[in-house]
């Protein structure tokens, strides 16, 4: 098990190295060159000249890359061209919000998707199953921001059940030791703040989680149906296993293998979707910040954020691989 983790971590290094090279070249490929990345689109030729001189952008590429990597390793990721704030600070100020949102979305997706897919498979071909199949098909094809609009309009604008924007009511005063607002409220025993933060999470999390939910439900259903027809399930029935044990320990456990992989893949989708969902709900996480950076073409922010997100994504996939090893003994390296 430890070897599996170490091995995966070992694979992480070349991936990150390759990614940093691509991101480095990316900025160099931008229209206007790297100076634009620092000065923004409307920089004067003189200013560009000065920056090129100052940062050595006219030096050979590999020297520039090594210098840039040196900066990164010292924790210097540059500053936003618009606000001049260090990118790293901006990232960590907003990261908890996005984690909170994606985790709740993932909990919704997994918590509903797996049981739904399982129940559908048990009733294969019947009404419940067909409804699930149709619903999950529609769930996969709705653009996340369109769904966000729909939820916002119906439940926030029309019904007024949930707030329509932000992470907390502006009138709410609360302390934030961790940056995870719901957790903060609980830790500081500011129950109303925790509750308020939770209500702000509901709509964005549902919008964000619905597509992964549909996908997880579909995969679970397909996987359970396949496992139910497997030889070892038949043998388990032949040796007289009672239905509860058969379902729990034979069918479900084997059916979860492809589902685990799928859940890992959903994290990428969630991070992409967060950019759009946070924008619609004015939810102040890295997603909406990134959307702003995209809109303003703030390359320094984009460069750093894409690197951070890729690292986070890679780490999550590593965790998925490891958990896969936990469920499937065949994956363990002896």
């Amino acid at each position, binding site marked *: 098990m430890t*070897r599996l983790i170490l*091995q995966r971590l*070992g*694979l992480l290094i070349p991936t990150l190295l390759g990614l940093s090279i691509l991101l480095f070249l990316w900025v160099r490929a931008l229209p206007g060159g790297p100076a634009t990345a620092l000065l923004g689109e409307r920089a004067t030729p003189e200013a560009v000249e000065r920056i090129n001189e100052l940062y050595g952008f006219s030096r050979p590429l590999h020297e520039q890359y090594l210098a840039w990597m040196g900066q990164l390793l010292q924790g210097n990721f540059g500053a936003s061209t618009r606000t001049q704030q260090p990118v790293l600070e901006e990232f960590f100020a907003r990261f908890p919000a996005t984690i909170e949102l994606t985790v709740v979305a993932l909990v919704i997706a997994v918590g509903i998707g797996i049981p739904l897919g399982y129940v559908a498979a048990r009733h294969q071909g019947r009404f419940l199953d067909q409804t699930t199949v149709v619903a999950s098909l529609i769930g996969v094809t709705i653009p996340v921001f369109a769904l966000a609009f729909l939820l916002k309009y119906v439940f926030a604008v029309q019904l007024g059940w949930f707030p329509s924007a932000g992470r907390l009511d502006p009138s709410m005063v609360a302390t934030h030791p961790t940056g995870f607002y719901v957790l903060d409220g609980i830790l500081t025993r500011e129950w109303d703040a925790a509750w308020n933060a939770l209500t702000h999470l509901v709509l964005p999390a549902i919008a964000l989680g619905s597509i992964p939910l549909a996908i997880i439900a579909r995969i679970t259903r397909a996987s359970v149906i396949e496992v139910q027809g*497997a*030889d*070892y399930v*038949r*043998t*388990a*029935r*032949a*040796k*007289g*296993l*009672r239905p509860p*044990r058969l379902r729990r*320990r*034979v069918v479900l*456990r*084997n059916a979860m*293998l492809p589902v685990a992989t799928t859940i890992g893949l959903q994290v990428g989708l969630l991070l992409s979707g967060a950019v759009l969902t946070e924008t619609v709900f004015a939810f102040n996480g890295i997603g909406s910040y990134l959307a702003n950076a995209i809109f303003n073409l703030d390359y320094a922010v984009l460069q750093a954020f894409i690197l951070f997100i890729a690292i986070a994504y890679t780490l999550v996939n590593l965790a998925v691989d490891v958990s896969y090893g936990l*469920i*499937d*003994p*065949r994956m363990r*390296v002896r």
Partner: protein
Amino acid sequence: MTGSPLLSLRDVEVTFTTEAGSLPAARGVSFDVHPGETVAIVGESGSGKSTTAAAVIGLLAENGAVTRGQILFDGQDLAALPHSATSRLRGSDIGMVPQDPMSNLNPVMRVGDQIVEALEDNGVARGAAARRRAVELLEEAGLPDAERRARQYPHEFSGGMRQRALIAMGLSCRPRLLIADEPTSALDVTVQRVILDRLDELTAELGTAVLLITHDLGLAAERASRIVVMYGGEVVETGPALELLRDPQHEYTQRLLAAAPSLASRRIQLAKVTGLAAVAARDLLSVSHGDGVDAATEGAGGTRTDSIIEVSGVSKVFQLRGKGLFSRTEAFTAVDDVSFVIPRGRTVAIVGESGSGKSTVARMMLDLIPPTSGSITFNGERVGGANRAAEVRFRRQVQPIFQDPYASLDPLYSIYRTIEEPLRAHDFGTAAQRRERVHELMDDVALSPTLLRRYPAELSGGQRQRVAIARALALNPDLVVCDEAVSALDVIVQSQILRLLADLQSRLGLSYLFISHDLAVVRQIADHVCVMQDGRIVEQGTADDVFDQPQTPYTQMLLDAIPGAGLELGVAS
């Protein structure tokens, strides 16, 4: 048999509901199994034998049902019982040993736990007692080091070990009836024998009745006291094993008896002892056969004694990539210093179990992979040289026939295109001449030209293998490499293809390299036999020598493993 039967099928019909309508998979099936008795159902794929077994244990597929008749177990009609009641009988009263040990164990659960859960759910034992019992059961099934093995996962087991675990599982709750569905057909022959022996001993000890499902008449005769022969969903003949073998009544049983390689090789053996050469000749398909039995055809090229291919000191080492990121590659010697020759117009067989390296030899002979060391010389020319012209010449003269007739034909090519491809590739004549040649080849392999515009998916296994043979013969090769060419086929089709191969050999003067795990088949077709084990040839000689006076214990073991070796068959004329 006296007393009332434990299991009694009366006029049972099983129907599957499919898109195309209802399909009866078994009709009018009746037979009895008495307590402690072993009864075998013998038939080919599609005969309804497995369906019948599934009906008994109540594990028919979702769309299948017993639509008529009674399945009386201990006087109780299982077909009429509700599902919950039959499910209570499973495991505790009726056990099962399934066919494929690779797919029948839960891959994510420890082997011991899989027996424990059976014990617990059938109320035999719980907790620590159940765990102790599971180890005992594994030991009893002949699994060495059972204590440690019980804590391992199925993927850490070999095929034979898994099958022992499945036997332990099937017998764990001491059922009165055990259904063994082709319990060893996925295993190597030597393992097969050991496992079947153990199963026999155990069921005899426990007094368990066994319903054995098999395609091998020889095996059935050896293991069962009575045999039920099924064909096309119906029982065609039932009777005591030996009686049925000596005096088959139904035409189908007679054909099956004639086709079964295990029985054929036994007949050859008996005929030699009694000196009845003509009898053995019916079963021997090789162009020449040694002393005593020399009555059959002496083919066109049969008298020439030069060799078509010489293999000397050939080895193949594979570099296996290590599992870790930084671990080095490991060398694995698949073929180790192998030498033999194939005389022109003769058949040389390589026999061995899985992993013996026999298929690697075949690949090297086809120049699909290069040998690591040693040389292969074809018609005096070294194989695998850099010369493209020599390679093209070699390709024309050496052609393969593979095991799986489905996988060996491109599914997107019509039969015509498949057979024409080699002609086209080697610029054979005009389009009209190629067409003529394709029709000629179809005639050679006894296929109707109406099949030419079909696709492989629309053909039966036997037809596909004939197409593969036609393709191999298209360029008039000298040597045909048959890599398990008949192993995937049902016995009767198998014997038809073997006869076709023998016939083509004598007509066209072909030489064959015949790779097989099945000694009984090899006995019929080969002139010369090489026995391979762990990459080496441990014994080689004429077929008669190897089969009549095996020199190594390993060959002896392989021979003993042919089912039906001890049967007393009626071979008189």
